[in-house]
């Protein structure tokens, strides 16, 4: 794994070819081929149930948690086929972080939420952990708000703060890719703006794949956009072009609000 992961200079950091995914007998993804470039923000849009979240969760193999899922196809992440035998899931998920739709802080202190990831990956030194906690919270733009109450419960934070805490928690294990599954859909407009601002700050440093059903959000934060419908990838392109000049009629209908 280590050997393959070092090839981060490659242009396509995520490369998916002919991906099919079934939940039992229901096919949720049909022959998806899609790539993400190093350092870009890739938005996945589409109506509910179109498979965009399922796609996102194949990238760090979180779909494995559902026993009836079956995956076929090639998913290359950082130069390695992650559905190949012998992949270390712990290392994969460390390199490919995931932020959930509903913020899910652990019922622990703010500090322990951030330090949990580094700890399970073997970091024990207090000074090192202190540094990681501060740095991660700063990157998630939360440090100033919580620096005086790091030992307070994370459940006492507001919804928007909790979501930024979850982003900080994902950053604490030094990922290369950040997956975001509708990270702002449960937040008020101000907190949403804050998250979008944060994505802008992280762009370039991390490769971000974000699922959203909010098309304005996709237009604001992403470099490229992929439109999913009924488990198929309909169209993908540079965000500004896809929104102003879609090639496919279905995409046109969706972004102009005719369905979905």
């Amino acid at each position: 794994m280590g050997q393959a992961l070092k090839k981060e200079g490659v242009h396509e950091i995520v490369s998916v070819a002919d991906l099919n995914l079934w939940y039992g007998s229901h096919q949720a993804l049909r022959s998806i081929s899609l790539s993400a470039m190093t350092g870009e923000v890739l938005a996945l849009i589409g109506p509910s149930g179109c498979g965009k979240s399922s796609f996102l969760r194949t990238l760090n193999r979180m779909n494995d948690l559902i026993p009836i899922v079956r995956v076929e196809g090639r998913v290359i992440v950082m130069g390695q086929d992650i559905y190949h035998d012998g992949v270390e899931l712990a290392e994969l998920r460390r390199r490919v972080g995931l932020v959930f739709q509903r913020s899910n802080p652990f019922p622990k202190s703010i500090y322990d939420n951030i330090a949990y990831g580094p700890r399970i990956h073997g970091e024990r030194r207090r000074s090192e952990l202190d540094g990681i906690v501060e740095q991660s919270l700063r990157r998630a733009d939360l440090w100033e708000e919580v620096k005086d109450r790091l030992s307070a419960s994370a459940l006492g934070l507001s919804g928007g703060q909790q979501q930024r805490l979850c982003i900080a928690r994902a950053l604490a294990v030094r990922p290369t890719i950040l997956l975001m599954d509708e990270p702002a859909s449960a937040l008020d407009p101000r907190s949403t703006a804050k998250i979008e601002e944060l994505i802008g700050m992280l762009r370039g440093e991390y490769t971000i794949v974000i699922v959203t059903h909010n098309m304005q959000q996709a237009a604001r934060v992403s470099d490229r956009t992929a439109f999913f419908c009924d488990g198929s990838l309909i169209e993908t392109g540079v965000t500004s072009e896809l929104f102003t000049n879609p090639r496919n009629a279905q995409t046109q209908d969706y972004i102009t609000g005719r369905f979905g």
Partner: protein
Amino acid sequence: MRSTINIAKAMVGPVERDTPPRKMSRRSVGEIIFFVAATVSFLLCMGTLVVMVVDLVQTSAGRLTWQFLSGVSSRLADRAGVLPAIAGTVWVTSIAMVISLPIGIGAAVYLEEFCRRSALSRVLEIAIANLAGVPAIIFGMVGLHLFVRWCGFGRSVLSGGLTMALVVLPLIILVSREAIRSVPRDVREGSLALGASTMQTVWHQVLPAALPGLLTGAILGVCRIIGEAAPLLALGAVTYLTKTPSGLDSPFTTLPIQVFNWISRPQVAFHHNAAGAIVVLLMVLFVLNGAAIVIRARGQRRG
């Protein structure tokens, strides 16, 4: 009594609100009958409890002295005490919990986290639910055969503790599973998404989050053990002891067995002793149940 009145008020409230002010509808008559039936049932339960406690306290009056609590068995009722029974209860309960808690929680973790929703899990679930319903005397006979005879532990406090561990194991597994299941899926996914293994997730996230429920299960288990006499009778616990157990191989008695023994004697004075021992037993159970409620309430507030 005040609480009874409050509950009655709370129950009357909605009836008044729902009833149209002018005429009595059929629905309101039904509701009044239901309300009266429920209240009578409730008062019957409470009444039984009150009568029992009052009777016990009256019967045991004068027996609940320091000498009774610190005394050992005697042929004279007014010299006999419950110290060996209290010590035996503590010994048996401790041994049973030390064994059944880790095994029970471990089994619950296995069932919830590792073999969820498989056919095997369903079969095991039914088996455990059935075990929880098996009469305790059966466990006593298993204990007699397995621990007393086959393992050669004799009629010792160790055999008693091991047998009681069998008795509470199904209960602890059921309650622990419930506690583990109540931990949100989000927490597990959040941990796994950071690269934690299932074991790390269970150890660092699920079990701490389930702790109030696990503790409640443990206390319910303790209460069950403290009140149980049948398995130890089958095991052959002795009832005439002049000293407390000094080691795992010591003979022992427990409070319920002491009560059983004293009640079966012809002399009335011993019956008073039995009432005293029951009051001691009830007080221990009351304190432990109270602790369980406090722990659960605290857990709910935090979650």
